């Protein structure tokens, strides 16, 4: 039998942390701070190999999922499943964790699907497309695969749910995922009410029409838009993580630095200005913290929030560009003052590349929208 469902969710934060740890390991290795580089490097490699994605697959009557390269995997016979539903627990971090009523396996985000087995055990599988996973499990569980009208219905339903999901993504309500699951269940119930002879395209469209336009979901859930917006996005959490690492690196290397450190260079790479090491080492992270706070707080202020909603990706790009530039500046200062005479122009090149790439992406997306 063919694979009936397969999807991989990227573990973005795991990738970012893994890469940062590897870079930090390389940096530490240059200074021979053994055995720190071994710990950092091994942790970085493990995070990348283990957490760069979580794949879920339904094939030959089995639900399988595995982390990264397949270091950890689990296989469940579909016939052992009683039902599945959206994970209703609170965020418990990423990896393999025991939550109050079963094991949670995830690499990113806060969404998961709870699979309830005949044994009474519950398994929570992280995914960024829970509705589709529940659909796929239910399809196999209820033996619906292969029926032409069911497939047609699945497409109609999936299209509607996708449009609702897009509409809700603007509202950013914390329960958007539950709304989607409830709407999916509602649609299933409408479908099961149809006699086989009533399972026509026209009737499917009538059901969708009776559900209402997707935009109304966002409108009706909108009163809580403010509270939804107050939650940090994955990108913002990632940038805050980078900021903390910058502070951590500065604090760790602080005792090894000279009392006065060079912080500015001339066009030909010659030092042009220096500062006390307290300012030089923590100036960049502090400046970055101010920028991060501004970029996180501005989109959440009531007066600009409506406009900012449409420019969320724009702001996301700004955060990424600032992160790259600030990291480059901090490492230039640290490396140079530790004796590695890196060319300061590299910082300028990295900054220019980051800004140009960001502008290019903005232009590319602007054309696509036309």
């Amino acid at each position: 039998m063919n694979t009936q469902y397969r999807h991989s969710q990227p573990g973005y934060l795991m990738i970012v942390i893994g890469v940062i740890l590897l870079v930090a390991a390389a940096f530490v290795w240059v200074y021979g701070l053994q055995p720190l580089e071994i710990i950092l490097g091994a942790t970085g490699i493990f995070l990348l190999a283990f957490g760069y994605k979580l794949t879920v697959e339904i094939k030959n009557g089995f639900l399988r999922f595995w982390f990264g390269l397949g270091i950890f995997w689990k296989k469940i016979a579909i016939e052992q499943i009683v039902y599945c539903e959206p994970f209703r627990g609170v965020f418990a971090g990423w990896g393999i964790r025991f939550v109050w009523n079963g094991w949670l396996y995830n690499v990113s985000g806060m969404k998961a699907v709870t699979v309830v087995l005949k044994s009474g055990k519950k398994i929570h599988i992280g995914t960024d497309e829970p509705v589709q996973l529940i659909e796929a499990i239910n399809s196999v569980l209820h033996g619906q695969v292969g029926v032409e009208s069911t497939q047609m219905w699945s497409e109609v339903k999936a299209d509607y749910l996708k449009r609702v999901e897009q509409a809700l993504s603007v509202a950013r309500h914390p329960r958007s995922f539950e709304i989607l699951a409830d709407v999916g269940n509602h649609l299933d119930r409408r479908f099961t009410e149809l006699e086989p002879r009533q399972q026509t395209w026209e009737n499917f469209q009538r059901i969708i029409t009776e559900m209402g336009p997707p935009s109304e979901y966002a409108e009706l859930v909108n009163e809580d838009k403010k509270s939804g917006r107050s939650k940090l996005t994955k990108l913002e959490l990632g940038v805050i993580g980078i900021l903390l690492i910058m502070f951590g690196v500065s604090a760790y290397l602080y005792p090894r630095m000279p009392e006065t450190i060079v912080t500015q260079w001339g066009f030909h790479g010659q030092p042009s200005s220096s500062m006390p090491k307290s300012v030089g080492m923590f100036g960049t992270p502090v400046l970055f913290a101010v920028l991060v706070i501004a970029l996180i707080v501005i989109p959440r202020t009531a007066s600009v929030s409506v406009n900012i909603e449409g420019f969320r990706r724009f702001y996301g790009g700004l955060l990424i560009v600032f992160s790259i530039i600030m990291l480059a500046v901090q490492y230039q200062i640290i490396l140079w003052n530790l004796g590695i005479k890196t060319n300061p122009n590299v910082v300028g090149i990295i900054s220019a590349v980051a800004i140009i790439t960001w502008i290019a992406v903005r232009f590319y997306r602007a054309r696509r929208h036309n």
Partner: protein
Amino acid sequence: MNLENWQTQLRKGLLDIVVLNLLNRGPSHGYEMVQTMKRIEGLQIREGNIYPVLARLETDGLVTSYPQPSTDGPPRKYFQLTTAGQKALEDMNRHWDQLISSFESIRKGAGL
């Protein structure tokens, strides 16, 4: 003036108080509430509308939900009023009665 638009907006505006009053009769699930409302003249809503409203009320702590096994499919998600929901409903109903009374006095030209 588009009468249909006005009716739609009015129905949407009443959704919170209607849903809370329905739940005041006892726990219910979204599908059942939609079917009940479909049978009431003037309250026919678009079926999907109920879920964002329930999600919002749950986030606000006015209702709570729990799964209940079903004989004909996956477990149903039942909603019930919380204590805060009961209190909010009392306030809303009181305000509604006052609103209707004021509206009637305007209609009849009394007390103006």
